[in-house]
């Protein structure tokens, strides 16, 4: 439940990384790699101690998602500009001041590198 945001994640994140590793495919994220399961950003997005995007968003392949935010689907069609997507995840309150979505970049919930990887991944959804 709401350990969603707590940090008893050492083992969980390990598990998440392993899971991602298990489905790692040899080469490359082509744009139509739907779900992007081989992308490192996915593990970060799913990790309860990192992105924990599933706390609020349905994401294909993710277990027991919340529904506070909209499902993350058709992202490229809706965000032709990657920078806009980056801005939403960096600090959602610049777009909606009342947003409940944590400012992952601005508050260093994710490092700049992690944030980039998450944006790469989410863009494939």
């Amino acid at each position: 439940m709401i350990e969603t945001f707590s940090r008893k994640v050492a083992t969980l994140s390990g598990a998440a990384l392993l899971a991602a590793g298990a489905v790692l495919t040899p080469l490359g994220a082509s744009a139509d790699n739907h779900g992007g399961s081989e992308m490192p950003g996915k593990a970060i997005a799913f990790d309860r101690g990192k992105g924990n995007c599933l706390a609020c968003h349905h994401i294909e392949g993710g277990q027991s998602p919340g529904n506070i935010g909209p499902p993350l689907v058709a992202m490229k069609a809706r965000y032709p500009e990657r920078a806009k997507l980056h801005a939403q995840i960096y600090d959602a309150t610049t777009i909606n001041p009342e947003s409940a979505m944590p400012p992952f970049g601005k508050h260093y919930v994710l490092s700049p590198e992690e944030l980039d990887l998450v944006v790469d991944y989410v863009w494939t959804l």
Partner: protein
Amino acid sequence: MSKKILIAAALAVAVGLPAGAMATPEEDRIQFRNHFQDRFSEVPLEEYPNGVYAIDPVGRENWEAIEEFPPYEPFIDTGRDMWEKPFANGKTYADCFPDGPGIAHKYPHWDKDKGMVMTLPLALNNCREANSEEPLKYKKGPINDLLSYIAFESRGEVTNVVVPEDDPRALAAYEDGKKFYYTRRGQLNFSCAHCHVQNGGLVLRTETLSPSLGHTTHFPVYRSKWGTVGTLHRRFTGCNKQVRAKPFEAHGEEYRNLEYFLTYMSNGLELNGPGARK
């Protein structure tokens, strides 16, 4: 002054209060209640003291099964013994609280002499100290037994917090608690209202967020996750921590004022403690 108005205006936007003059506590309370009654139009007002189970039929089934053998019962019994057992000086809690033990509905209240919000746990500890007993810890342990007994004996009483008009410090304490409730905190940047007003009824991971109306009626609460009974301020602490904010001191000024505001919002709702939650 202008800063205060700005804050009031920001709050007004957040909960959809009418902008303009600062709302009175009574206006706040009606807005607050209407927000939930509009949102969950099928839920009768008297259901709100049941927390998330007022709006989550699946969780409710489980909860009703749990309530058949209430996990908080042993705590009530222990608390009764505590209430009745004389202090070393021969006095008892009843000497401090002649109307006791069913006194939960009298708290929190504005204590004019002390110039502060008086909460029940604080009053219990004041009584102990006046009788040369060590104060109890506020979040875990025996205070929960005593509070369980008092809550049980107070069942059916009605929440009725007063912000007296003859002491501007009381309104200031209320406003302070209100501001706390709507202020973003922690690395994850949530206010209490984000989870329990704006998103009440939605699902955070696997947890349905309870509406804040009725939040104070049933404490202390037995939580399966805790495996025991815990106080309201323990819950505040947990909710602060999950957004990676530093919690405040239990029964310090911030949480006392928060309790004052939050309990006022539930005025008119019946007390039904101790409660049980997952």
